[in-house]
């Protein structure tokens, strides 16, 4: 329970603006806020990245530790993702067990990372059936100004791309080596504001939204995850148009992950 209430006139204003193709912060309907990614922010992690989309900030840290493979996949490594919507980042987050919002962010990001085969899990296997690397992807929301999902995946994929397998430290090999990343999934989130479907919603736009749609794409032209959230509906035509836009944004955002901007 938070003491934050969105004023109805603010919601109405957002919807009125959208009807004429405008947004509160002056952005276009199909425009992201400024993006910045700071790789290697945390030296205790095996890979890390702090991603900013506007005032939304997510810090992702990668940890690799030896463990046991699952019995049904003896030749594959284990990937675990976890998002913490810590109360530090927003007046609307509470302490305690993970809220549904945190679980949704975790799972939507997890699905994109897995489906895109971002890392080849078979390469994490050390001894089939006995020993494998467990790759932990922990995401910490530090600022929530809207669109957590896209920001979280940007942080996660950037951290994975620059991660090191600590093989020497765990006496599994003579030297550490770079984690092999084979694909780069990017999630693009849209919300419906009346007849408009706008990309990269702010916190206030999410409060006013009549439905949210997240589309994950990778660099090979595959759609690797989708998630419809919030109360509202999208037609199949809406979805198709949104997927097309997600590919265009995805190609640009991948530039930030690889480093050096779009």
């Amino acid at each position, binding site marked *: 329970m938070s*003491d*934050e*209430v*969105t*004023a*109805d*006139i*603010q*919601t*109405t*204003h*957002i919807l*009125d*603006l959208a009807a*004429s193709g*405008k947004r*509160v912060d*002056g952005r276009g309907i199909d425009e992201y806020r400024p993006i910045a990614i700071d790789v290697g922010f945390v030296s205790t992690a095996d890979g890390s990245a702090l991603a900013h989309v506007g005032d939304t900030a997510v810090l992702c840290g990668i940890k690799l530790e030896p463990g046991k493979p699952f019995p049904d996949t003896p030749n594959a490594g284990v990937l675990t993702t976890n998002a913490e919507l810590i109360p530090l980042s927003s007046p609307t987050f509470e302490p305690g067990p993970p809220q549904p919002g945190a679980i949704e962010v975790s799972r939507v990001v997890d699905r994109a990372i897995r489906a895109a085969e971002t890392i080849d899990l078979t390469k994490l296997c050390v001894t089939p059936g006995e020993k494998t690397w467990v790759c932990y992807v922990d995401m910490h929301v530090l600022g929530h100004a809207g669109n957590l999902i896209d920001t979280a995946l940007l942080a996660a994929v950037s951290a994975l791309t620059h991660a090191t397998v600590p093989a020497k430290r765990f006496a599994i090999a003579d030297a550490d080596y770079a984690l092999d990343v084979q694909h780069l999934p990017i999630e693009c989130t849209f919300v419906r504001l009346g007849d408009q479907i706008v990309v990269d919603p702010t916190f206030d736009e999410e409060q006013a939204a009549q439905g949210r749609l997240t589309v994950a794409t990778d660099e090979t032209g595959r759609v690797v995850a989708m998630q419809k959230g919030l109360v509202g509906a999208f037609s199949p035509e809406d979805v198709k148009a949104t997927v097309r836009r997600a590919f265009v944004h995805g190609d640009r955002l991948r530039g930030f992950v690889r480093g050096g901007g779009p």
Partner: protein
Amino acid sequence: MIPLSGRYIPKPGDVVVGTVTDVQTTFWLLDIGAPRWAPLHMTGTPWKIDVGETDRYLGVGDSVVVQVESLEATGRIGVTMNGEGLGKLEGGTIVRISPARIPRVVGRGGSMIQTITGQTGARVAIGQNGRIWVDGDAEAIRRVTEVLRMIEANGQRSGLTGRVESYLLATTPTGERGASGPIPPEDREPGPGDGADGAPDEPAWGGDSADPSSFGPADE
């Protein structure tokens, strides 16, 4: 320690912008950005309301301009909607800035807010709690919002009014009446030593109702 930021701490007499968070049979609870929700009793309104009928007048999410009347030792904040310039807000939107910046938004002698309303044609109601109601056409609201962000980021700088004027002149839509009209005279900026409390006793409303020229569009 003099707080230069943080939550709004109410003072009797402050005019504030609030949003209804709860409706009870004889009162509403308002979020005014203060440490606690402020009860607005039905007798503190210009309406004749029967017990249990409060929800016909204001519902959750509605916004109002009210005045802080009393602060009790229990932390209760008493507010009223009876008074000039107080009432329910219709249309427009609410922009939130740090309450510590409100004196700069008003400006010395109301000069800053006169510049803003004069150059944009927007209607503005300033709450001492850092919540500012802005109404007008979409472009006017956007320009005022931009100016408020500018003031928030540069509250300690001098020469702010000049910068705000330059921005507003540069963004004046072509053909708008008043674009070439007289600019309110440059105010005397508070010196650096005045800090954020340059004009603590200005009227809360951007347009004091006694002075309509500073409330509505100046060129109407």
